[in-house]
């Protein structure tokens, strides 16, 4: 699925303009890094894609469909096409790693026999199958973030969104996490990663879009990666 922002403006009630006339096309199957300092508009960009927010002006298109037109009752189904990874992980403490990863499948109503197979495959893809029965508190920060990635991809999303996925991790773990995203990009998933770590994203050889005060101020790397 491709993504396109057309002259998108997002102004909050307090007058802050988080995005100012942003236009960008992210092709299907590409990998794009959004960079910029805190407050540049990266998270707003992702929230608009998730339709947690709506643009003040302009349109956000996913698969050539203006997502503003998706009815409220259809939003959950739209979100099932997206895999989401956030900095703080947001794992449910009382549930095992297996159950945390299975959450999107429960929500989608996947049959039990398919569920176990897909959760094992997702955990295998982040090398955590052996820890499926543990609780989140029993894992390291890097492992927890890999569980979140497994949860984001278990539903075979067409688009993978990540907001500062390496924020709490050391440089070695950060590279491991980014390499995981590359792996999903390699199998055709459109990946958008927001990160303030310009040094890290600069080494990945993917398209880099730099935001500053809600405007695109630079683009680099491979423009149609994938």
């Amino acid at each position, binding site marked *: 699925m491709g993504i396109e922002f057309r002259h998108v403006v997002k102004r909050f009630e307090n007058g802050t303009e988080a995005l100012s006339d942003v236009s960008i096309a992210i092709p299907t199957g590409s990998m794009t890094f959004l960079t910029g300092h805190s407050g540049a508009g990266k998270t707003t960009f992702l929230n608009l894609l998730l339709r947690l927010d709506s643009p003040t002006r302009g349109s956000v298109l996913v698969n050539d469909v203006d997502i503003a037109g998706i009815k409220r009752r259809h939003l959950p189904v739209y*979100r099932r096409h997206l895999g989401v990874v956030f900095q703080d992980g947001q794992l449910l403490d009382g549930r095992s790693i297996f159950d945390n990863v299975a959450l999107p499948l429960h929500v989608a109503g996947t049959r039990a026999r398919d569920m176990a197979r897909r959760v094992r495959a997702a955990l295998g893809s982040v090398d955590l199958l052996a820890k499926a029965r543990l609780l989140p508190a029993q894992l390291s920060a890097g492992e927890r973030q890999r569980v979140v990635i497994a949860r984001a991809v278990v539903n075979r999303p067409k688009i993978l969104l990540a907001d500062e996925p390496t924020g709490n991790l050391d440089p070695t773990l950060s590279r491991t996490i980014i390499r995981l995203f590359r792996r999903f990009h390699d199998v055709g998933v459109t990946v958008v990663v927001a990160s303030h770590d310009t040094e890290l994203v600069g080494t990945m050889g993917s398209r880099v879009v730099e935001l500053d005060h809600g405007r695109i101020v630079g683009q680099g790397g491979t423009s149609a990666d994938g």
Partner: protein
Amino acid sequence: MARVRIWQAESRPWSAYWRDHGRVVGDTLSYVTGRFATTLWVWLTIGVALAVPAALYLLEANLGQAAGQWRENLGFSVYYKPGVPLNEPQTLAKRLQAMDGVERVWLMTPDEALAEFRELSGIGDALGLLEDNPLPASVRATVNATVSTDGVARLAEEAAGANGVADVVVERSWLERLGAVREIVIRLYWSLAAILGLGAVLTSGATVRLAIESRLEEVKVLTLVGAGRAYVRRPFLYLGAVYGLGGAVIAAMAVSGLLLLLEGPLVRLFASYGRDLELAGFDPIFHVMLLAAGAVLGVLGAAAASRQRLDRMGLA
């Protein structure tokens, strides 16, 4: 490549639906047992709110039964002047028996009246000193269920016009008083049911709201992985139902205890009126209705709280 319609879901199998409900029931029971002190507090609060209207409902049902029993005696008595020939009350008795709505008619001759008075008054020996029987003949009639108290009054008026009649007494005052008391109880019941029912809804809603606050992270995650509003709200609605059902069980226990406490004095009171006590309303239907009312009120509170909270979050 075929266009993927990004808002259309595949149909969910029924097995997934039931599996979700089963999981939520398990999670809910685990949640309430894990916070038993809070749960017990909520159950007691809702229980008190339900017990008061439940007790009033039983009171009303029993007053209704008592009114029905008293109604069986609804009628009037016609007293003749002393010395009136017996054929007069006999004629009236026949006339009344033929009237629509009259159930039974008894004729009591002066001799029968004296014998009964002798037996009931305990002054039989003193009565033996009288030269003449001072008691008049009388006719008593009861009516069937089709006749209203006004209808009884009309029949009594007609009887009063017969020859030799001294007085006619309509036995309806008790029934009218009982009816008035019953009316008060019914109004009190509905008023308190509405006020305390609202209290139960608010209690459930406030507690469920706290549960939502403690599980906000879970709600956010569920929303981001594509859970619909019904899916997100389901655990909280079950929680409301458990609070309401638990409250109803407490209310049933409280009412049972109250009846146990009152049964002895009530049996003696009824016996003094020559009646056996058979409590009305305290049956399986009453218990099912009480449990259903508890569950519905609990769910209503949870539905309002979860709707309001999720709307405010703007997520689901």
